[in-house]
């Protein structure tokens, strides 16, 4: 064997941008960009942890560029209350040059109220757009509310395991999604563990399949 057997649920396979965002029926990236344009390029994507907000943002970026808005993506993790100075500098420089950017903040609620207030002033003053993700509404026009249905989770797993023999069943995917209260990211990490445990049960040349132990119902140690 030349390389370690890949796990379809590893971070590099499931991170935003690596896996597509599956829209609900009647919704599309182009449609969201049009709604954002109609809202003056201000909007929010709202949803609980692990429901695809960052993945949706990654899916929107090329469509935003195609729509003629230059996105400036920023990610804020837990405890990151301020914006990098370079972001404010870029917004100010672009505004003075007459360029209109679209500031895209993933994790907007991490910002302090003071930073968020100054940011809105800076964007409004420079004519820049503002698109954010948050777990609850932050007072911007709502473009999309993310949640993961069983069918959406099944489609994501089918995409990740495409071209390979299935190693988990649809029922296991649904069970993990329910156990994680709709947090698909955590459910996928559970499936990573299940895939690895099943892999340990087969020989190097064997095939991993859902027929092999363990299962979530009867975990092994």
């Amino acid at each position: 064997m030349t390389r370690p057997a890949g796990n379809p649920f590893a971070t590099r396979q499931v991170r935003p941008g690596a896996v597509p965002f599956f829209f609900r029926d009647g919704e599309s990236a182009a449609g969201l960009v049009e709604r954002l344009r109609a809202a003056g390029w201000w909007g929010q994507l709202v949803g609980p942890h692990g429901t695809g907000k960052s993945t949706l943002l990654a899916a929107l970026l090329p469509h935003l560029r195609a729509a003629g808005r230059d996105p400036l993506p920023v990610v804020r993790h837990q405890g990151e209350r301020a914006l990098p100075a370079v972001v404010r500098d870029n917004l100010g420089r672009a505004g003075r040059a007459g360029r209109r950017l679209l500031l895209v903040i993933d994790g907007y609620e991490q910002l302090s109220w003071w930073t968020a207030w100054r940011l809105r002033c800076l964007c409004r003053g420079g004519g820049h757009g503002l698109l954010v993700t948050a777990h609850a509404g932050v007072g911007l026009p709502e473009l999309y509310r993310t949640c993961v249905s069983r069918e959406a989770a099944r489609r994501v797993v089918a995409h990740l395991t495409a071209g390979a023999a299935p190693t988990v069943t649809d029922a296991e995917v649904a069970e993990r999604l329910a156990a994680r209260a709709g947090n698909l990211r955590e459910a996928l990490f559970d499936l990573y563990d299940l895939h690895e445990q099943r892999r340990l049960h087969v020989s190097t040349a064997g095939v991993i399949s859902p027929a092999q132990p363990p299962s979530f119902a009867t975990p092994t140690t």
Partner: protein
Amino acid sequence: MRREDVTIELDRDPSDYLPDESLSGSWSFAAASDGEVRSAELSVLWYTEGKGDEDFGVQHFERLSAYEAGPVESGRPQRFSLRLPRAPLTYDGVLVKVCWCVRVRVFWDGGETVGEAPFRLGDVARAREVPT
């Protein structure tokens, strides 16, 4: 241009190497029917795969650029050779895996196409279940 249009051939089959050994081979790509190739990059790198944060390191890098050396020719195999390091060794673990590969990225007017050839560095046994 599709992923299959990038060809990477290592001189050793199976492609298992020991630390400090020499790795050599060739790479090429088919002409992009939907745009001119602007540049192509060859990297020999390792990366981690698992549930947590990812890490990677580039051991070797070459770049062909239309801006620097004229049109990037398709079809003509390009040779490469390097001395492999002593670490990190390929590891097939449960929580984390360490993978090595030769990666070729071709940038053309319509986008980017990536091809990979995996290889193994070292002879560390894969993780196995410990009987309880």
